[in-house]
């Protein structure tokens, strides 16, 4: 009877026979741990109308009459149907039984919001269980790496955790952790993201048809919601991987009212120190370490009020040291013997804190207030010290020099978001947000024993303010036509300059027979901060800089049209074409160097425009023993900047004409084993390479030979760069697979995983390098075939 509906009959006496409007509201939660189920569907059978839960599991549904039969569904959970006789507005908290994601029999045929029903375009939800099944590098499950498998999304360079959406750059994707922006959420030079998968509740990526509630970025929104912690019982989960270990502790503080969740991850890389020292010779790499900690407490004050406090901190740090001896002299009879020590350190860290308050005003109105801080620091530090002994005097002296390269951004924000669901036709959302940005981009600070601490005045701190307001309505115009329309207004001030903007958003769906729908959307987006970054994996240096009175905010217009269909109530298929234009994009000037601190950042950049267009096909199967998704993207991505490439259009680095990805998981009959595989193919990256070498300069200087004037001639050669992106690296393709073995022993649930990354050892090009010995160019690959393994225990 697992596939049967579980009826609950709640009878209210004195039921009215009049056809009055009644509102049923409440929350949908996981029965086992009390977690909010985000995006769960509430569906009324008689009218065929429905709604979904918001980010806090809240729903509100209005019916006419004195009875209703509501079905509550969520992917991977057993649905519940509730029959109601209604006397007045009613509140119901529904608990769904989970853990059945793979059980085809149980979930088949039940209703949950399908891709052909939603009015939004370009939005993908990945179930966390599916994310955990994706084969990964070194066995470290990764939310952002899973998002990179969605069509229209790329990570850029191999190994990177960036989310590049539809021709956009990494900084054009807003990554939200519980609604709070997080900058550069990566570890180990981008190999892992900062999101501990054991602490994640819901993952949604928006590529187009942006609802008005989102703003601040041009290309994408990755909205990641963390779990709240088991409110029923204490539980723990520990995982051991090849590079890091994870631990999650959660449980009730006051049963049914207050719960907590702490998750932590730390690397083992400092253990490598002896081997690394040997590897790098005279210079010693002291070590590399990273960690992250998530802590979250939530407290239900009463049935209408709930508060949350969250903390996230994550950091990476690499240090190295080099010692060498020199001998010098500046005057006769004064030989200086010196011991020189250089220490280099690089690190970046995030600190996020937030306080949230949910309040259910009445059965149709709900609001959430969030106050937060998001702080990102990048520090590169070079320290030089010299201890000198003068010969023959024996006098000693010390000299020190410290150089810091600092890039910081700190956001202080407050926002309020209202949900108002007056009836089944409308779902209003409106709200406002204020963000104070504090930038410290690329400060070069020098300190020596001879001088005081100095800060380069060219790179002063900048503060900016952003005020946002929005209103949107998810409107069921007719049973076939659904529209999500809204407007996002923004006022931004920086350097005495105020920018304002009204950003219209519209997406619509028109239903056709056979679970087929046509969709279209338009979004205008503005962005007031951007990261100047290098494209490679080598250095995760992100220089977050604001729009100023000279640097105008970026903006984009995106149109998309498509069709979506759900087949067999299980397989979702969508086809979507998009066309996006982008303006005021930042690009480094030709020849400008990223680490050159002689010039302030704003003197090293140009502004230009971009254009991206293409077609995406996405197939997703979320239920059953066989699950997975596949996507294909055909796209073009171009840029034009006045003083770059002679002002001509050129292909952006990550212009991948063809991009195909498939990931699948199959659970074997015995229910202990499941196997996963991912295959990726992408057209080669567009890079700029020289086409010839030429004589660029001839120096003639005075000289004499045997008393006769005889000029010296020396020459400079240069490489001819004809145009940007003039060469395509070899296509990228890779196969990963993973085998999981799950079993229960006593109270413990065990999961062991082994896998292979890059199974057929494809030497995918990472960058092109000139080999001076062999006088040839060659492509350098990052990861050969590599093992992956992890082991986790849960109780």
């Amino acid at each position: 009877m697992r596939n049967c509906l579980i009826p609950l009959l709640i009878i209210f006496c004195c039921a009215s026979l009049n056809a009055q409007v009644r509102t049923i509201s409440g929350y949908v939660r996981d029965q086992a741990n009390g977690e909010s189920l985000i995006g769960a569907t509430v569906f009324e059978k008689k009218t065929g109308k429905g709604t979904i839960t918001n980010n806090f599991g809240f729903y509100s549904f209005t019916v006419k009459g004195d009875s209703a039969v509501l079905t509550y569904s969520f992917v991977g959970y057993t649905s519940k149907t509730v029959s109601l006789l209604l006397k007045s507005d009613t509140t119901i908290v529904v608990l769904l039984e989970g853990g059945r994601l793979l059980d085809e029999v149980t979930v088949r045929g039940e209703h949950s919001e399908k891709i052909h029903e939603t009015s939004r375009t370009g939005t993908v939800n990945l179930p966390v269980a599916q994310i955990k099944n994706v084969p990964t590098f070194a066995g470290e499950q990764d939310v952002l790496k899973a998002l990179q498998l969605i069509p229209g999304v790329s990570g850029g360079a191999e190994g990177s955790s960036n989310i590049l959406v539809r021709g956009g750059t990494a900084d054009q994707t807003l990554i939200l952790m519980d609604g709070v922006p997080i900058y550069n959420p990566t570890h180990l030079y981008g190999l892992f993201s900062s999101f501990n998968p054991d602490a994640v509740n819901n993952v949604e990526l928006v590529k187009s048809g942006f609802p008005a509630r989102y703003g601040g970025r041009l290309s994408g929104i990755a909205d990641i919601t963390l779990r709240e912690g088991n409110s029923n019982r204490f539980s723990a989960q520990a995982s051991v991987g090849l590079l890091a270990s994870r631990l999650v502790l959660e449980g009730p503080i006051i049963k049914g009212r207050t719960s907590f969740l702490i998750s932590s991850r730390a690397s083992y890389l400092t253990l490598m120190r002896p081997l690394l020292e040997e590897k790098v010779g005279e210079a010693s790499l002291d070590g590399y370490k990273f960690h992250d900690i998530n802590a979250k407490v939530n407290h239900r004050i009463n049935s209408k009020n709930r508060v949350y406090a969250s903390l996230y901190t994550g950091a990476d740090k690499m240090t190295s040291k080099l010692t060498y001896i020199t001998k010098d002299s500046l005057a006769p009879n004064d030989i200086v013997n010196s011991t020189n020590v250089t220490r280099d350190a690089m690190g970046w860290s995030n600190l996020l804190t937030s306080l949230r308050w949910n309040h259910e005003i009445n059965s149709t109105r709900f609001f959430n207030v969030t106050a937060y801080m998001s702080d990102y620091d990048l520090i590169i530090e070079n320290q030089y010290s010299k201890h000198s002994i003068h010969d023959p005097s024996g006098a000693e002296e010390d000299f020190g020099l410290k150089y810091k390269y600092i890039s910081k951004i700190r956001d202080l924000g407050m926002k309020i978001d209202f949900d108002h669901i007056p009836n089944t036709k409308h779902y209003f959302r409106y709200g406002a947000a204020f963000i104070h940005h504090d930038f410290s981009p690329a400060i070069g600070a020098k300190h020596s024993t001879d001088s005081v601490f100095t800060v380069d005045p060219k790179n002063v701190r900048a503060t900016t303010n952003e005020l946002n307001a929005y209103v949107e309505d998810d409107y069921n115009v007719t049973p076939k036509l659904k529209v999500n329309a809204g407007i996002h207004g923004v006022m931004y001030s920086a350097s005495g300059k105020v920018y304002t903007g009204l950003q219209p958003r519209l997406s619509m769906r028109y239903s056709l027979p056979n679970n087929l729908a046509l969709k279209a959307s338009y979004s205008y987006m503005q962005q007031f901060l951007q990261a100047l970054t290098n494209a490679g994996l080598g250095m995760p240096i992100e220089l977050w800089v604001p729009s100023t009175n000279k640097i105008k905010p970026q903006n984009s217009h995106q149109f998309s049209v498509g069709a979506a269909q759900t087949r067999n109530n299980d397989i979702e298929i969508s086809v979507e074409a998009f066309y996006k234009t982008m303006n005021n994009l930042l690009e480094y000037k030709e020849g400008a160097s990223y680490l050159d601190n002689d010039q302030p950042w704003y003197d090293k950049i140009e502004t230009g425009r971009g254009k991206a267009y293409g077609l995406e096909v996405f197939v997703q199967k979320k239920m059953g023993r066989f699950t997975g998704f596949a996507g294909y993207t055909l796209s073009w991505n171009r840029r034009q900047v006045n003083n770059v490439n002679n002002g001509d259009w050129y292909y952006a680095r990550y212009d991948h004409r063809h991009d195909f990805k498939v990931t699948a998981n199959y659970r074997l009959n015995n229910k202990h084993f499941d196997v996963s595989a991912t295959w990726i193919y992408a057209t080669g990256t567009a890079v700029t390479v020289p086409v010839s070498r030429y004589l660029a300069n001839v120096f003639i200087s005075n000289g004499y030979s045997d008393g006769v004037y005889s000029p010296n001639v020396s020459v400079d050669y240069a490489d001819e760069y004809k145009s940007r992106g003039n060469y395509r690296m070899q296509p990228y393709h890779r196969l990963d697979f993973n085998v999981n073995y799950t079993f229960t022993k006593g109270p413990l649930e065990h999961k062991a995983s082994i896998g292979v990354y890059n199974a057929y050892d494809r030497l995918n090009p990472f960058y092109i390098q000139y080999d001076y010995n062999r006088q040839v160019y060659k492509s350098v690959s990052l990861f050969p075939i590599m093992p992956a393994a992890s082991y986790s225990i849960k109780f």
Partner: protein
Amino acid sequence: MRRLIFISVLIVLAGCEPGDLVNLPSEPSKITVLASNTVGHPWFVIVSPTKLTSGHQFIPPLPDATVKIYEDGDFVEQLVNDTIYPDYGPAFFRSQVNSPAPGHEYMITVEAEGYTTVAGKYTQPEPVPADITFEVREKKPIYVTSSITDGNTTTFKYDTANQWTFDITITFTDPPGDNFYAFALGAAPTEDSLDLPGTSDGYMQVEGPSLGDPLLYGLVIDDKEISGKQVTAKFTYTIDDHISFYFENAPLLNEKIPSWFRISIKSMNEAQYKFLIQTRKAQASNNDPYAQPVTTYTNIENGLGVFGGYTPYSKTFHYKLE
């Protein structure tokens, strides 16, 4: 387990492995022309072929090329090969009599067997008169140390000298239209030797805010920021009176310390300016993996390089360093 972790991380760190050889897009060799000419100096053109990017092959001269100069559409002369070091140096072509004059349009054609003929055009700019000053700021004694290391033994050699610093100002009014300038200092022991090739590259430093691209040390500027205005550009020039070992075997040793200084403001055509900027950017970022590639600029049709000119306005000063 610890061993497994070690091995895995080593694999990660050693993961950067060479991949396949790459055949970069390449083009047939073409002619490069370097022809930056100055009013008052005979035509001087350097010709060479381009080479493939793979390999650090020596770029040979192209001495059999035919280089012709035209003025306002009329043929002027065919330059003669005057290569200084024919075995390994670039091919020089000179005129003995003709030089560019302000206000005229010039064209160059270069032909060589096996190569597509190339051509370029420019108009020689007018000079920009300026008020130029050159004054000593300070003189201070210095040690000049050189060292030789033999195994673990380092031997030091000392000389004493004086270091001189001069202040230079150049005041001029930017004429209408788009203009491009270079500021230069030549230093030589005799006034005549100021005209020798290679004498025009004294190291002036900009004093105060630069008017131009920092990549060119403010010595080459366009007039975007100063259009139509009267401007005073300030520089310093530092020189010591130490006799370099390069000159130890030269005749007239006592005259090797410069005492003649020529300060110039040179107007140049736009192509010359763009070529200077782009090649300088390319050179500055040559070995920097984090630098953006620089698109090559040329005004030579079917080839590479530049055909352009300088028109200097100069003032000569005599100052004996003693």
